[in-house]
C-alpha cells in the first residue's frame, strides 16, 4: 500500500475544508493568547491553494508537485508567523517526496522534513507552546508506527493522533515563542492555535489516506 498524488490532492482539499470549518475556533484560540487572526490567515491561504489547484492546466504528477504548490501559495497569501512556518514545512516536505508513490518510510520522511522546516525557520524547541508541540509527537508516533510495520494510512493515523495529543498538551504550557510569549504566565491554560491547526491538517492527511 502506497500513497500517490491523488492522496496529496485529497489531503490538500480536506485541509482547506477543515481549516475553513474551524476558522472561528482558530480565531478564538488566537484571540485568547495572540491576535485573533490564525483562522482567518489559514482560511485565506488554503482558499488560495484550492483556487490555484483548480486553475492548473494539467493535474500535478507527483506528491511533491502538490506540496510545492501548497508551500508557495501559503507563503504568498497567509502572512503572519504561520505563513512562513507552514510554507517552509510544505517546501521541505516537497523536497523529500519527489517520487510518484509514498510508502510508510516516505510518509515518515515527509513529516520529519516538515517539522525540521518549521524548527529551522521558527527556532522553537518542544515545550515552548507552538505548533512544534504538535508536529514533534506526530513524527514520533509516525516513526513508531512505521517501525512496527504499519501501512502509510496507519502511519498517518498515528501521526494525527500524536498531533492531537501534543496539541492538548500545550494547554498547561507557558509560551516562550510566538505572540503568546508576550503574555507570560497568562499564556498558561490555553490551547495553542498553531498546534490545533497542525492537528486538523494531519487529521486531514490521515482521512485522505483511507478515502
Amino acid at each position: 500500500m502506497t500513497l500517490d498524488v491523488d492522496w496529496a490532492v485529497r489531503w490538500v482539499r480536506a485541509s482547506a475544508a477543515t481549516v475553513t470549518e474551524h476558522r472561528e475556533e482558530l480565531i478564538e484560540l488566537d484571540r485568547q493568547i495572540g491576535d485573533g487572526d490564525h483562522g482567518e490567515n489559514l482560511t485565506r491561504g488554503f482558499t488560495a491553494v484550492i483556487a490555484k489547484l483548480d486553475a492548473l492546466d494539467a493535474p500535478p504528477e507527483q506528491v511533491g508537485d502538490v506540496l510545492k504548490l501548497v508551500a508557495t501559495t501559503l507563503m504568498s497569501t497567509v502572512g503572519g508567523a504561520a505563513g512562513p512556518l507552514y510554507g517552509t514545512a510544505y517546501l521541505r516536505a516537497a523536497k523529500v517526496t519527489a517520487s510518484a508513490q509514498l510508502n510508510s518510510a516516505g510518509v515518515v520522511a515527509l513529516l520529519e522534513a516538515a517539522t525540521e522546516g518549521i524548527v529551522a525557520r521558527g527556532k522553537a524547541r518542544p515545550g515552548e507552546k507552538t505548533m512544534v508541540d504538535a508536529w514533534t509527537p506526530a513524527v514520533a508516533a509516525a516513526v513508531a508506527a512505521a517501525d512496527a510495520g504499519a501501512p502509510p494510512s496507519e502511519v498517518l493515523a498515528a501521526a494525527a493522533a500524536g498531533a492531537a495529543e501534543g496539541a492538548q498538551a500545550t494547554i498547561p504550557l507557558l509560551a516562550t515563542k510566538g505572540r503568546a510569549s508576550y503574555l507570560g504566565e497568562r499564556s498558561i491554560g490555553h490551547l495553542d492555535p498553531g498546534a490545533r491547526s497542525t492537528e486538523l491538517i494531519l487529521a486531514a492527511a490521515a482521512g485522505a489516506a483511507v478515502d
Partner: protein
Amino acid sequence: MKKLINDPQNVVTESVEGFVLAHADIVTKNDDPLFVSRVGGAVQGKVGLVSGGGSGHEPLHAGFIGVGMLDAAVPGAMFTSPTPDQIAPALQAADGGAGVLAIVKNYTGDVLNFETGAELADAEGVEVATVIVNDDVAVENSTWTAGRRGVAGTVLVEKLAGAAAERGDDLATVTAIAQRVIDNVRTMGVALTACTVPHAGKPSFDLPEDEIEIGIGIHGEPGRHRIPLAPADEITATLLDAVADDLALAAGEQVLLLVNGMGGTPASELYIVYRQARALLEARGAQVARSLVGNYTTSLEMQGASVTVLRLDDELTGLWDAPVHTAALRW
C-alpha cells in the same frame, strides 16, 4: 461589531485605495501584490527605506512614506504581517541603487516574512540591510522568549533613519543610525478597551468596566497584567518609570517624548498623559528636548496610549528637525 467598513475582507484594500487617492501628491500604490511607495519612484543614489507589517496601526507605515522618511511600505492583512511576495517588490521599488534598509518590528511573522522577502530581493540584485525594532519594555525575560515587540518607537526609527538617508548617508551609516535609535528607545503601553479586528468580529479581549491592561502590544493582545482603573497620573507613572528605568536614564540627558494614542483616545487625554510624563522626566533631571503627541502607531479603535522615550544626542536631534513630508508627519 460597529465599523465604518464594507466587506471585512476588503478593509485593507479599500482603505489603502482611499489613502493613496487622498495623498496622490506623495504616494502611489502597486496592486498585486499590494504595496505603497513614493510617487515618482525610488530616489536615485539615495538609500531606500522600507517598512511594513500588519494593517490596523495606521498611520504606520504608509502614512510615513515621503521625503525624509520611508520610500515604501507593505501593508499586510489586519494585524497580520505581509508576505514575501509583497515585500520583495517593495524593496526593489525603493532601491535607487544605494541599497535598501528594511525596518521590521520584532514579531515572528514580520521577521520571517521580511527575511524571505529580503532574500528574494537580493536575488534580484537589491542590497538589503535589516533592523529589528524592539522597544516594548512590557515584555520581560525577553532573552527567553520571542523578544521584545516593536511598537511606537518604530516611528522614531523611520523618521531618524529617513532623515539620514535623505541627507545622503550610505546604507551602512543609515543602518547604524537606525540601530542607534533602536538601542536608545523604549516604550510601554496601556489599554482601557480592547479593539475589534474586522474579520474576528469581536473584541480582542474582554475587559471589565473597572480594569485596564498594562503592557499591551499593538495587536490587541492582552497585556502583561490587569490592574484596576486608576488616575491618569498614576498610570502614566507606571509606564514612564518602566521606560526610563529600562533606558537607565540619567540626570542631564536630553530626550524625545512621544505620547502615542492607540486610535480611540481623545487628544485631550493624550495631553494629560504627556503633561505627567514630562513632569516625571523632569523630576528625574532629564530634559524633554523634543515631543510628539498623537495617534502614530495605533491598534484600530483601541482606547489607550503608550509612552515612548528616546535618548537624544545632537545628531539625532538634528535628524529629528530635518524636513519631513509625509501624510502623517510633516514639517
